[in-house]
């Protein structure tokens, strides 16, 4: 705990930021303690549940394992940035319309993973959805609703981009 802090620069939800981080600090910790962002939250602490998911340079990572020092120069997106004022992201809208959560603790992780999936594959089939979301856990087990939400979000996004 005595090791020296290092200053890093990165882009957080579109804005340039700096942070003083120690070698053992993970991404979740830095987001919570230095930027007051709690959408990414630790649960299993082993990178197995997906509650801590954030996008680093467009790639979903487990914020509980990903060391904060590696963010230097990167672009980080958290769930807090998805909604514009008064307007939710189509994925968030779809999660609400499909009732794709119960307690909501894992929801930010699922929303970000779904977002990343749809960036890659605009119209995923059932198997692609299940494979992509296999690393996220929901103890309330709203999985059927989540699958529906991803399909609805795909339709919304496609409609949005053409209209």
């Amino acid at each position: 705990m005595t090791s020296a802090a290092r200053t890093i620069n990165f882009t957080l939800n579109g804005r340039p930021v700096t942070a003083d981080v120690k070698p053992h600090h993970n991404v979740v910790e830095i987001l919570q303690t230095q930027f007051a962002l709690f959408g990414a939250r630790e649960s299993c602490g082993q990178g197995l549940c997906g509650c801590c998911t954030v996008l680093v340079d467009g790639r979903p990572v487990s914020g509980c394992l990903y060391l904060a020092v590696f963010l230097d120069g990167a672009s980080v997106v958290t769930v807090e940035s998805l909604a514009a004022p008064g307007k939710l992201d189509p994925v968030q809208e779809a999660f609400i319309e499909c009732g794709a959560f119960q307690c909501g603790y894992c929801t930010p992780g699922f929303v970000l993973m779904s977002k990343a999936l749809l960036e890659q594959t605009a119209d995923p089939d059932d198997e692609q959805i299940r494979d992509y979301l296999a690393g996220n856990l929901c103890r309330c087990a709203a999985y059927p609703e989540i699958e529906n939400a991803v399909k609805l979000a795909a339709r919304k996004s496609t409609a949005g981009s053409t209209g």
Partner: protein
Amino acid sequence: MANLNTTAAQAGHQVGRSLPRLEAREKVTGRAEYTHLMQLPGMLHAKIFRSTVAHGRIKSVDVSEARKVAGVYGVYTCDDVRTVIPDPYYGPAFHDQPILALGKVHYVGEPVAVVLAADPHIADQAVQQIVAEYDELPAVFDEVEAADNKVLVHDELKPAGTFADLKHLKGRKGTNIALDFRLRRGDIDKAFASAAHVFEHTFRTQKVLHMALEPYASIADYRDDGVTIHSGAQGPSFVRTEIARLLGWPENRVRVKVPYLGGGYGGKLYIKMEALAVALSMLARRPVKVALTMEEQFYTITKHPSTFRIKSGLDKDGKIVARKCEVWWNGGAYADVGPRVTQKSGFTASGPYDIDNVSIDSYALYTNLTPAGALRGFGIPQLVWAYESHTDMIARALKRDPLDFRKQNLLREGRPQATGTILKDAAIEKVLDRIAERLNWSQPFDRGTGVVRRGRGFAVALKAVISPTTSVAIVNIAGDGSATLYCGTVDMGQGSDTAMAQMVGEVLDMPAESVRVVPRDTDVTPYDMGTLGSRSLFHMGHAVRLAAEDARDKIAALRHELGEPAGSNAPLGDLFRKKYGMQAGNIVGTGTYKPDYIPPDASGLTTNATPFWMVAGSGVELEVDIETGHVRITRLINVADVGRAINPRIVETQLSGASIMQLGFSMFEKMHIDGGQITNASLADYKIPGIHDVPPAMENITVDTTQENGPFGAKGVGELATFGVSPAIANAIDDAVGVRLTELPLTAESVLRALRAKDNQPLGEE
């Protein structure tokens, strides 16, 4: 489940709408509040040093090196705790659990000492410097062995007095039995003596975990004139009462605030980290947060492992004339609510059948394991696992169709259940018929050939909801006519805030979305017994309905007082302006609900065991690979009697989620324990259901019923779809390959071992 009308925001008919959850927006944007994520100014983090032995006297706890770590605020043991709380024992049924281990440790993982620091990493590091020495004592882990009382977990029993029927156990020594519930109906010996067929089987369930993704967390901020506790708690009123008792304070100096819960499932009931957080805040004079890691949840509370020996006698026509049930509940080192699980589930241990002669013995046992409490079913899933496997085995042994055999013996409306309470509004037959219809039970079924064999099975269950319990609610109408609901039901994902708002909207003729539901805060939200056992929609639902009706009556009186013509629907805000000359004033409606109840007599009999019966069942189709033992569930059907659904879509999600959770408990979840040590205490080694574990075809169905004494015809839902899943799967495995498993979980290994044993080629032990 068709009514998914999510757009109708107009007033009227709020009950029955599939309104999205009121807090949906907060949850999808990551803004919903959870205790585990909360920070207070000046807050210290607590990290716990835990016992490494299952049973032992504490010789010494050396904290000197830990205290030297730079940045450590303090290190505390129970000796320190006793300087601020002299009698540091807590618990809902027994005051048996010390805030930190006192004199002895009773299980591996029991909290022994705590380090406080502003930086949790420093606290963690300092915990590694603590050294404890123990005189190890013999330990007992199995619930049936514990009943022999050869190894004693506690020197003396300490019932809390909260439950009158446990008072006689006070001061009892020489036993591990925290409670024995007995029920005697008819003449069991005579019935067995004259029975044409007798069947006896023993079933076991394993130790499994709630594993809420938000681990346990409590923050206490102690001041000389009061303490505020932020906690992920399912029962804020109980926490307040218990902390007030520990401090010797009146309740109004203890404030418990509960935001949303990141899952509860029964784990966050009663009192968990709250007492420790309060004691530490008293010692440190700072706010203290006790927030556990995922691993530490394995050392906090679990489901009860159980052993159930069940014996049935039948007459020559296949009518069950006698059933004897002996259930041993492995309660772990502290009673928590185990005695309640033992008694309340005991009421229905003989199942949803009409049997004249019943004998039930249900034992709550102490063992040297992590304590066990309520987990989505209050013991019912363990019982259904046994009695619906047993019932199926009897049908198969007698070459009877399992559906036909059950229907011959089913408990029907108007008949006395084992306790003597008359069955009412319990759609057992409707549920069973619907499962059979969805499974096409009367039609031939392709059981496959070669390596992959197919089978189908089902199970049906009955539960008496816990009674008697009290709920209180307040509905407050502001000067502009807007309504606010104060109720202590904790929304841990089941959608209670939304359902309660719908009930308020229904009574006051306003959109449910416009009703504000105040987050739970014992300074403002009135008493509620707890969010548990599927009781809230019924009990709190009634209290909310009564409070809204009280407000509605007061509004009518105000209209009358102001000389409004009969039938006037002048906006509420206009009434207040007319009355007070400006936008001012309040109308406060209150409601209290407590159902009637008659405690069981010495024979376990009562004519009023429960305000409502819970009924549900499941049907399963599956494939078994006979070379590997791998089971693939291809279809899962859950059918439940929920009365009238307040919010059909949330009901459906509850049924679906509960059944998938139970699928995990049925197929693979298990805490592996070696000499009292949990060897898989992490999410890496303890698998829970993921998206690939969801059966490809799932149906969640509610039968068309009304709970006559329920609020708007409704009753509880949360636990229902857990009941039938495990035995339905085991019954389907038997149907597919002719082997019978009697112990959960139903792993590929256990299926393969059974297949090989059946072929007289048993696999060797590992």
